[in-house]
């Protein structure tokens, strides 16, 4: 009897709960109506392209046929990609590019943030100067760096030859071994200010009294940084690193403008390779399969990003 009563009670609670949800939706109907246009736009510009890209990834699109005459090939595009030697070259380049750019940009940005967190004369001017690379258009920056690196009459080469430090200008971007590191340098130059700004904001949250107390307790600079500062900026660091990693994984402008992925695919990363497959070679199916794989990788970054943000929120609520 008790059990029966108990069941009845549970279902009643559930019904009440359901009614409550519907009720709440009804009560907020105008709020939903306000966000409906945004949701509709997102469905059109985000959900449909994702669906279409996934669909297209199962088709072959030879150069002599229109896209509507595409041929269904099942998972062939995926197997072709994974067995293609170019895929592994491009993936290796992408990993070097992403990890190298993200790690160094973050470390450099953090170091600058720590330096600029202190009060000293000219801090504001220095901060403004350091932000310049980030606000310059990536296209303009790429062209400027192309000339700086130019293998015949680049600025660096001219200076080195002029000072007698080299016989000929060094070959930065026309060499398969040096092209990727050279592009990573440009990328770091462009995005470390972003890390710097994020970390400067994070450093504002470190309580001064804690640092002073640690100093009074005899902690040295490294100990104060590691035991007091860093724990407070850990979450903002995670978010910064994730944002940098996603941006770098998605990079296009710098490698495309400076080298077009060359020489000999040595600076081709996923995005430039996808672009070339789609627009240069019209392999829409293969390019879509690449894009689906890239989407899955970036979604995993997205998961960690959301998790990092959520842990921030929970921490904030708990406090």
């Amino acid at each position: 009897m008790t059990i029966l009563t108990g069941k009845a009670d549970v279902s009643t609670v559930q019904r009440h709960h359901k009614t409550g949800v519907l009720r709440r939706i009804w009560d907020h109907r105008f709020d939903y109506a306000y966000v409906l246009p945004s949701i509709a736009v997102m469905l059109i510009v985000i959900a449909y392209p994702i669906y279409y890209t996934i669909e297209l990834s199962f088709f072959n699109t030879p150069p002599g046929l229109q896209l509507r005459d595409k041929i269904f090939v099942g998972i062939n595009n995926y197997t072709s990609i994974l067995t293609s030697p170019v895929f592994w070259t491009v993936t290796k380049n992408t990993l070097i590019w992403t990890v190298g750019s993200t790690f160094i940009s973050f470390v450099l940005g953090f170091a600058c943030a720590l330096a600029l967190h202190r009060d000293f004369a000219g801090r504001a001017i220095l901060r403004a100067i350091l932000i310049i690379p980030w606000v310059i258009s990536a296209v303009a920056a790429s062209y400027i760096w192309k000339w700086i690196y130019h293998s015949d009459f680049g600025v660096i080469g001219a200076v080195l030859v002029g000072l007698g430090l080299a016989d000929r200008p060094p070959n930065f971007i026309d060499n398969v071994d040096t092209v990727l590191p050279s592009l990573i340098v440009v990328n770091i130059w462009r995005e470390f200010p972003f890390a710097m700004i994020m970390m400067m904001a994070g450093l504002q949250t470190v309580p001064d009294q804690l640092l002073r107390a640690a100093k009074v307790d005899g902690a040295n600079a490294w100990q104060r940084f590691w035991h007091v500062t860093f724990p407070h900026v850990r979450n903002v660091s995670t978010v910064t690193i994730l944002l940098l990693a996603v941006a770098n994984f998605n990079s296009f402008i710098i490698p495309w403008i400076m080298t077009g992925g060359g020489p000999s695919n040595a600076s081709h990363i996923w995005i430039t390779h996808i672009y070339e497959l789609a627009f240069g070679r019209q392999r829409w199916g293969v390019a879509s399969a690449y894009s689906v794989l890239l989407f899955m990788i970036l979604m995993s970054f997205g998961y960690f990003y959301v998790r990092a943000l959520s842990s921030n929120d929970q921490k904030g609520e708990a406090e």
Partner: protein
Amino acid sequence: MTSISLGGAVLRATVSTALLVSLMSASAMGASVDLSKWSPEYVRSIAGTQDFDTAADCNKITPLDYKGRLTFWYQGVFEGDPDSLREYYKEFFATFRKTYPNIQLEEQGLTYNDLLDKFRTALLGNAAPMAVRLQILGGVEFASKGYLQPLKPEDIGYSTQDFWPGAMKAVTWDGVSYGIPTNNETMAFIWNADIFKRAGLDPDKAPATWEDVVKYSKQIHDKLNVSGYGLVARKNAGNTPYRFMPQLWAYGGSVFDETSPDPTYKEVELASPQSKAALQASYDMYVRDKSVPVSALTNQQADNQPLFLAGQLGMMVSHPSDYDVMLDLQKKATATDKEKAQTVIDNMRYGLIPTGPDGKRAVVFGGSNIHILKPEYVEGGKVDEPAAKAIACMWSSPEWSLKLAYVGSNPGNLNGFKTKWMKDRLEKIKFLDVTTSMLPYGIPFPALPQSPEIMNIIVPDMLQNALTGAMTVDQAADDAAKKVKELMEGGL
């Protein structure tokens, strides 16, 4: 003494006059230019011999008071073009608007390297313009996919014989013509006579063979420490095939059998010993002798121009317009750079592109064509055909196909060679004789939908693989041949 009656004399005079007129109509005054007589002297002899009334001619196709709307994209000027070309483009569109005041024209100029990508993307979204002027390499790709309407010179009041057979081949797919050639050009060999002299070479003599180019390039570099030949090997840039293919063909190599009069494009020849010899020549210059710009792998011709003007480059393959480009660049130079640039311009020489070991001379038959799209691929689903034909008629007229090619190219419509502007051009443009002399050596790119990928990606990749040491010359040529074969078989 033979006596001739008055009636007989009148009859003979009538017949002879009729015969003379008919001969003239087949040559100088008629529909076409006699290509079998092609030489600088012949070009000079026909220049300024005929007047054309463009508006009246196009009125027969689309009445001048026609009311309509036209969207039009065209391969326009880019950073390597002289300023004067920009002025001719402006003048053309102003004249079109004046001639057809009731046609609402919405034109968009795109550079060579951007046009194909943008046009392909627009077609996927059925958002293409009604008419487009594409590079010679593009027409067949879009015709084979069914995007273009059949269009032949007769549709806009001209005759097929008014255009180069090679140019017509490049707009023909499956026996049907899909476009009208607007301009056709062949490049020439340019060198700096002062550099030649200082390097101990004959300043007034171009290298006769590609082997000489390799030799001269090394000599220039070793003696003067400047780059010898302006090699270009960037990927996704039209400049690369335009400079490498003449070398490949001269050595007897090819991608398929595009050098034969009736190509079938069945067998891939990129891995032939002749093709490999051509690639080896580039390798020798870049890797063995280090006598060409190191930046060749990321450079385009536009990057070679300032090098040449600065006296840092001895030889290059380019258009007659490069002379004007040098003048433009010189105007922008300051102080001693200006003088240096003037010295280079004074020492600029043009010659025929060198031959291969067997005396074969070849050059890419370049140019552009106008096409009209099918309505279903056009924004709004409608094509204003009379308006599209009006611009096709005007651009490919003897007058405008000459004027729009005034500095950098040659008229697509052969009758352009007969106009007064051609006469004027022969007097004003230095070295024009040389580049027009190269026209009969012109070979069109294979008329295949796969051609853009072969020329813009596979061929430059082959060069880069060999020049960076990523592959040996043999491996790079074999790899490229394999890629072309796979491409033709529909593979990845």
